[in-house]
């Protein structure tokens, strides 16, 4: 008996102690809410900050699980920056758990000077809490961002309060993308190179492949069945793959339900037919990236199509070409329903805002200096150094457009160069797509045809020409902790489920029944409210773009 009493007492003591300590912890968390004073470190506001005169050091956090910044100053490019521009960046790594790291930094009130990550939720949260530095005062003082990104893109990046907080990365005025259909040359040739333009051609070709090559996957749709969304894009004019992941279809001035959209329905019926007849890889939804790679690299697919075709295709192409010069893959113009104008089929989408952004937090001692660095980085000199390294290694001199002229080392030292360029990629926070792609194309076109990079050729000939400008649909989704955010979560679950279920349906009727059910469930979850919210945001975007 007394033993139980004592253990009870001990438990009570433990609880008491933990509560005391908890209280301490709580008040510590409370400190985080105190506004932090901005220290501009005595810089003269009228004069621009000159890199290389005053040393600049700042901390940098990349908000991705997979991102690890290489050590600063350990490679030729950042060493050059350290020596010539006196800039040092201290990395704060996510350690493979970006979400936890990010939340821990906020909760403890210790924000890094620069956060680099996706636009949207996280940036908005920080902005609403007053933790971000507005960049507007610096825009006029530094030339590059304004010049290269342009007024429209910057307007789109502005937050509700009309101020600019985000420094864009890989922003562009030109279409970009990696997706598309690639045809296995060897099989295509052996089957007599039939016409491959419409979905009817596709169906007939896949049937033929299945009959003649039973061990080959007729249509490999990649990770999570991405290629299936291409069927939606080709079913009517001016549809694009992004609408499937947005779970909304624009119709006039309104966003409408994806599930009741006749075009989406038709594409799912077609996808179901291909899947049922085993013309699409049966592991479409469950396979890993390695499984896809294995099939594509060994030429075990007749047609391969997903959002990363030019990425996976490059390696596969060179592997197959090494075995058989006639082998490899060719990217073809996106397939479409008969009667649809092929020039209006979009299997890629891009937005002028680019990929992601850097934001400067109120913890930064010298926000203007950081902006000056990012602005230099996105300009011609910065881009050349961070992409191709310092002058004299892989390039020497520039042409009239500022494009670096490749040296022989660039052409011969492929392995070492690829390694270094991958390292430099981790320092690329202000990518200037127009400049980099333009420079690459200038150099690439100098090469003889068989020496050209497969990805570049595929991109310039097909992928970029079939990329839809989705700038107006950027950032229209609600924050997750709002009512609409909860609805979005439910609708997304429903959409993912019905897309997969439709593949496995036994016939056309079942596909339609599943989509009807999905529509009902989504409506019950509040789909209409979500669509109205997104429509309003979309219309705001349009106004910003057209600059009213």
């Amino acid at each position, binding site marked *: *008996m*007394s*033993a*139980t009493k*004592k253990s009870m007492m001990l438990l009570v003591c*433990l*609880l008491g*102690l*933990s*509560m005391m*300590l*908890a209280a301490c*912890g*709580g*008040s510590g*968390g*409370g*400190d*985080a*809410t105190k506004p932090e004073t901005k220290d501009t470190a005595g810089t003269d506001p009228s004069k621009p900050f000159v890199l290389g005169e005053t040393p600049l050091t700042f901390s940098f956090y990349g908000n991705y699980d997979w991102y690890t910044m290489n050590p600063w100053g350990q490679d030729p490019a950042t060493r050059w920056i350290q020596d010539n521009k006196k800039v040092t960046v201290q990395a704060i790594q996510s350690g493979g758990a970006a*979400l936890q790291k990010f*939340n821990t930094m*906020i*909760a403890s009130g210790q924000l890094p000077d620069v956060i680099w990550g996706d636009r949207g*939720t996280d940036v908005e*949260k920080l902005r609403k*809490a007053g*933790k971000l530095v507005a960049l507007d005062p610096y825009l006029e003082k530094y030339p590059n961002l304004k010049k290269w990104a342009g007024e429209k893109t910057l307007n789109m990046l502005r937050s509700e309060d009309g101020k600019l907080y985000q420094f864009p990365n890989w922003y562009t005025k030109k279409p970009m993308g990696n997706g598309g259909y690639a045809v296995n040359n060897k099989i295509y040739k052996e089957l007599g190179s039939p016409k491959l333009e419409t979905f009817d051609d596709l169906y007939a070709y896949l049937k033929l492949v299945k009959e003649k090559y039973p061990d080959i*996957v007729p249509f490999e749709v990649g990770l999570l069945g991405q290629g299936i969304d291409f069927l939606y894009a080709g079913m009517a004019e001016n549809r694009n793959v992004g609408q499937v992941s947005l779970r909304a279809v624009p119709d006039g001035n309104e966003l409408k339900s994806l599930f009741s959209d006749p075009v989406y329905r038709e594409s799912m019926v077609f996808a179901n037919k291909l899947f049922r007849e*085993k013309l699409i*890889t*049966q*592991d479409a*939804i*469950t*396979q*890993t990236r*390695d*499984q896809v790679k294995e*099939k594509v690299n060994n030429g075990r697919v007749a047609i391969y199509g997903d959002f990363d075709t030019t990425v996976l295709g490059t390696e596969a192409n060179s592997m197959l070409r090494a075995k058989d010069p006639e082998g490899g893959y060719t990217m073809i113009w996106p397939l479409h329903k008969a009667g649809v104008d092929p020039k209006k089929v979009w299997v890629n989408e891009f937005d002028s805002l680019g990929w992601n952004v850097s934001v400067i937090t109120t913890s930064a001692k010298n926000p203007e200096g950081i902006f000056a660095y990012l602005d230099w980085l996105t300009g011609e000199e910065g881009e050349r150094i961070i992409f191709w390294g310092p002058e004299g290694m892989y390039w020497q001199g520039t042409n009239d457009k500022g494009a670096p002229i490749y040296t022989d080392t660039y052409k011969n030292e492929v392995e070492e160069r690829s390694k270094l360029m991958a390292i430099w990629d981790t320092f690329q926070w202000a990518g200037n797509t127009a400049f980099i792609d333009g420079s690459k194309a200038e150099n690439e076109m100098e090469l003889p045809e068989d020496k050209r990079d497969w990805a570049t050729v595929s991109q310039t000939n097909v992928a970029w020409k079939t990329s839809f400008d989705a700038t107006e649909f950027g950032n229209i989704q609600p924050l*997750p*902790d709002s009512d609409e*955010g*909860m609805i979005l*979560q*439910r609708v997304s*679950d429903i959409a*993912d*489920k019905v*897309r*997969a*279920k439709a593949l*496995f349906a036994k016939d056309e009727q079942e596909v339609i029944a599943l989509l009807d059910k999905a529509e009902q*469930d989504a409506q*019950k*979850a509040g789909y209409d409210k979500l669509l109205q919210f997104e429509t309003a945001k979309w219309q705001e975007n349009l106004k910003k773009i057209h600059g009213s």
Partner: protein
Amino acid sequence: MKKSISSAPLAGNRHSFWVRFAKQLDLQLMVIPAMILILMFSYLPMYGVLMAFQDYDIFKGFLHSPWVGLKHFRTFFEAPEFWTVMRNTFVISVLRLLIGFPAPILLALILNEVIHLRFKRIIQTVSYLPHFLSWVIVSGFVASMLATDNGSLNMLLQKLHLIGEPVNFLSIPGYFWAILIGTGVWKEIGFSAIVYLAAIAGINPEIYEAASMDGANRLKKMWYITLPGISGVITIFMILAVGDILSAGFEDILLLAKNPVLQDVSDVIDTYVYRVGIRNSLFSYAAAVGLFKSGISVILLTAANMMARKLGRSLW
């Protein structure tokens, strides 16, 4: 162990507590670090559950976030996914309890009957190695083994002419529970069996000898000596397993149920908390659902212990 301590003579007054403490000082010193660990990592963070009753705002912190009562619990109970999630959690847990729990006991019993020592060791090592593989690796194995395209299982079944067309194992809801439980058993059976093997080793060999004299065969000895001999350990693990019943699994389900088709049979409390709560940074909602789960676990644990007490083998 527990029994021997509580049945030690007790004086029952306050002085003797310290006297006894001093006498056991060496033992107590060994226990203290463990107590501190539990205090720091299990009790100290417990104040965080109060977050379930707040609209927690990460910038305002714990002390300044508004209190909202049972709002998040209500949201969860009213969510359309609630019943699916609860059903899956219970079904998967009960299956684990019925299949995953007795499996290592059976293995231990079988291994105990193996006379060839080297063979026994090899089996033991081979069967407990998978425990040290992470679920990411195991799920990779499973995915490629069960793939329709060049998956080993499908190839085997086709060669044996048991099936004509490859079966899409990882996309058919009907197979999911079997795959999940099967993989779990494969991964953990060897390691869990170690405890039971140790308990079996502690049984006095004289009892077996006496039984042999009385003419008991191996099956009889297993049933009348070995099983009762380890029943104490079994009960304790059973109680713990029941308390864990709502932890139907997390990593394994997350990694094996990639196909959204499976969501109707694979979504359990922990994966739901992760998908809806954590990924969207809805801390309060995640805390509320987690707290709900812990509440039920405590009730189940107490109930299981009460039942065990009736059998005279309770945990406390």
